[in-house]
């Protein structure tokens, strides 16, 4: 039996010419017409190409999922364009209505095509090959051979030869009809079902996943609970009780660098975070590296970033510490010149905010400004611009700890305040202006930023992808073909046989295959393996 294919598959029969006196369609007729259109090859092809085109905008414009900061930057730079594009969901291309409708339609089309084909293929695999055509002469690889046996013996041997070559054989009168390569259609169906498998896994299991980010400073611990994450994105069906209970403490972070001898730029060679994991009350030492994430329970933790968290201590005029903690400074350059913010809301006469840079290996540029020439702390220096006024932290509105809104503040060091910025080498302490107090760069712990993921789709997507690849290989490289052996005439010397084949789908090796069958058959019957002279 033929594989069931959409009517516009090039191997399907050409539909009789339409256009003359088409019957009127009722509602069911129209629905059937629409369904046939949707499941046609042409629609699938157009949807595939549309999907390719629709994916392009997401690579041109930053995406909220992959690059949220880029989106903010885009809004600041092009506020008008942003509004238009945002309405069109271009910043969420891959979850947008238009992108989703294309791939959902594509999958509906795919399922509508594949399910009837599966039913049909199931029946075909149990049916005998179709009857031998009356005339084989015009088919591929047609050849005739003379063999010195009678028709029955020739066909018996022919059947054996074909079966050994993997053909399914049926006898029709004085001929054999054989077909092989059913696996081609099986592979094709497996490939398409596997793609549905990928989509279903992501759609269903994806809702149960979550991922969260957290900065962990040296000697501090992070506990896997909702409130300890700096940022957290739950799946649709996420439930807080599903968080595996564990904690991670950063014991040490080590970075190894080389120097490019020509440009002097640092070349990172290795990052290692040594951590202590506590799970179910059991402590164990572990390492997290790039490309070597750490699995704990159902989660995986990845090392995504690292930097320095200078320990800043602020004293009031009496010398009492009113603020003392490590402050993560966010790296800005490959030499880890980093930007950080210190907020001291209590303990001084006024609220104090400071924006500062950290230089692991400080050097002075010709302009007098500081820079960092190496990412390791060979000569660590913090510079701070201090502000006083209302920090806006008392209204209960969540504020970004990495930024300071200076609009309503008074600058007291750096900039146009007339006072030099505070420059603090490690261990130094300087006074703030106006007898406000003093600031100390106490010590220099490191920090790492960790991504904690729980992704229940991984196994399903992996299995589906492997099945898709296998199905693809089979469907592209296993040839589906029919071969016939037919007795042309019998005489006293034996019989004359003819052989021919028919390809189902691309099959450049068909002619050779027919010849091979004829040769093997002749050899099995003790006849010369060359075409009979006709």
């Amino acid at each position, binding site marked *: 039996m033929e594989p069931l294919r959409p009517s516009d598959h*090039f*191997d399907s029969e050409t539909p009789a010419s339409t256009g003359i006196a088409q019957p009127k369609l009722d509602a069911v007729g129209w629905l059937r017409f629409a369904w046939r259109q949707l499941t046609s090859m042409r629609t*699938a092809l157009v949807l595939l190409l549309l999907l390719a085109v629709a*994916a392009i905008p997401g690579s041109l414009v930053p995406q909220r*999922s992959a690059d949220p900061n880029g989106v903010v930057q885009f809004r600041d730079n092009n506020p008008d364009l942003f509004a238009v594009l945002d309405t069109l969901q271009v910043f969420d291309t891959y979850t947008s209505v238009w992108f989703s409708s294309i791939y959902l339609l594509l999958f509906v089309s795919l399922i509508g095509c594949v399910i009837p084909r599966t039913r049909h293929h199931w029946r075909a695999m149990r049916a005998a090959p179709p009857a031998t055509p009356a005339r084989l002469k015009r088919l591929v690889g047609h050849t005739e051979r003379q063999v010195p046996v009678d028709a029955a013996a020739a066909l018996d041997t022919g059947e054996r030869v074909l079966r050994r070559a993997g053909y399914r054989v049926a006898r029709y009168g004085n001929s054999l009809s054989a077909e092989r390569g059913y696996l081609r259609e099986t592979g094709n169906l497996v490939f398409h079902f596997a793609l549905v498998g990928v989509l279903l896994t992501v759609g269903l299991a994806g809702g149960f996943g979550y991922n969260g980010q957290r900065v962990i400073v040296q000697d501090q611990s992070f506990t896997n609970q909702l409130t300890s994450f700096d940022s957290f994105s739950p799946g649709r069906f996420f439930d807080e009780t599903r968080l595996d209970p564990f904690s991670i403490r950063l014991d040490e972070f080590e970075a190894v660098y080389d120097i490019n001898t020509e440009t002097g730029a640092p070349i990172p060679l290795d990052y290692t975070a040594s951590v202590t994991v506590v799970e179910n009350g059991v402590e164990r030492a572990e390492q997290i590296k790039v490309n070597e994430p750490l699995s704990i329970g159902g989660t*995986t933790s990845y090392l995504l970033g690292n930097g320095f968290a200078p320990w800043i201590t602020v004293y009031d005029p009496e010398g009492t510490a009113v603020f003392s903690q490590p402050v993560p400074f966010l790296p800005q350059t490959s030499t880890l010149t980093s930007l950080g913010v210190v907020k001291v809301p209590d303990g001084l006469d006024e609220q104090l905010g400071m924006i500062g840079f950290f230089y692991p290996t400080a050097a002075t540029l010709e302009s007098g400004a500081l820079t960092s020439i190496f990412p390791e702390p060979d000569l660590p220096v913090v510079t701070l611009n201090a502000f006083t006024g209302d920090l806006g932290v008392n209204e209960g509105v969540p504020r970004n700890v990495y930024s300071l809104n200076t609009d309503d503040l008074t600058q007291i060091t750096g900039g146009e305040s007339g006072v030099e910025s505070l420059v603090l080498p490690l261990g130094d302490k300087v006074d703030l202006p106006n007898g406000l107090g003093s600031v100390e760069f106490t010590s220099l712990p490191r920090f790492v930023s960790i991504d904690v993921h729980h992704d229940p789709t991984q196994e399903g997507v992996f299995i589906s992808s492997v099945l898709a690849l296998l199905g693809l290989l089979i469907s592209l490289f296993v040839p589906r073909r029919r071969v016939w052996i037919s007795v042309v005439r019998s005489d006293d010397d034996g019989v004359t046989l003819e052989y021919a084949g028919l390809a189902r789908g691309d099959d450049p090796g068909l002619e050779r295959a027919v010849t091979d069958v004829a040769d093997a058959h002749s050899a099995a019957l003790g006849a010369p393996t060359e075409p009979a002279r006709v």
Partner: protein
Amino acid sequence: MENFAALSLVAIYSAMGVYTLSFIMFTLDLAKRSAARPVAVVAGATVNEASASVAESSSASVATAVRPVVDAALASGATRFQRIAFALAVLGWLLHFGGTVLRGLAGGRVPWANMFEFGLTATAIGMGVFLFAQFWKDLKFLGAYITGFTLLSLGIVTVNFYVDVVPLPPALQSAWLVIHVFVASLATGFFALGAGLSIMQLLSSRRAAHKTEGLRFVDTLPGATTLESLAYRVNVIGFVFWTFTLIAGAIWAERAWGRYWGWDTKEVWTFIIWTLFAGYIHARATRGWRGDRSAWLAIVGFSAVIFNYTIVNLFFKGLHSYSGL
């Protein structure tokens, strides 16, 4: 180590010199074929076209039935220039291959960790696919296209993308670098060859449609139907490798970045290319889309591969920022 890097460059420059000569010879071969058309060749080509149009209407399998005629036409179409050109291409490739291996030895790792090295390796593999494909079918008529393309690519990567040998950054320290990138280059090589065949197919079908137009050497090539079948067979191999690249990349991304798919710009373009070639395979099975239209899809697909390597690497912001520039 420094010596290896310098030697590698010498080998690559020498390869470029030899490729230049090879390109000139391949071009002369095509010119020669355009000028003098042996009668037998014209007859062969015409027969082929005639039966090809019969084939279109009945079944694709006839394409194979006419191949003996085509091969005969090819053999008589080849000129002395082509033999010299091919020998030079082999010599150039040996230098090219040697230069790429030396570059790997200089770094003590696989030679495809930045754009320059990837350019060397991908073109070496593409050229290798072309040379080894001759054991399968005589595709030497693509010589001018492949050597020209390789020469141009080598020129661009050595002049614009050259970087010194530097150690691998932590994100690239993975066995997947070896597998993922190597298979991606293989896929690129097959797509390059497939695009060449599709271009020839378009030239051939245009020449068949308007006998007076187009390039005359096309008459010495296999007919459009045969070229289409060859292009398809080369492109589906590329497609399988590309599918593998995509899956391997996802597995690596899960290890290195914490998710197997995140619509990073490079991932997006890998997906676009995959979708385009999936479309190409469907087009080859859709009535009305075989022939010229599917050939255009294959060419657009390969252009997207080139775009992905150049424009996306250099100008798009993303996680695959390993150009070293």
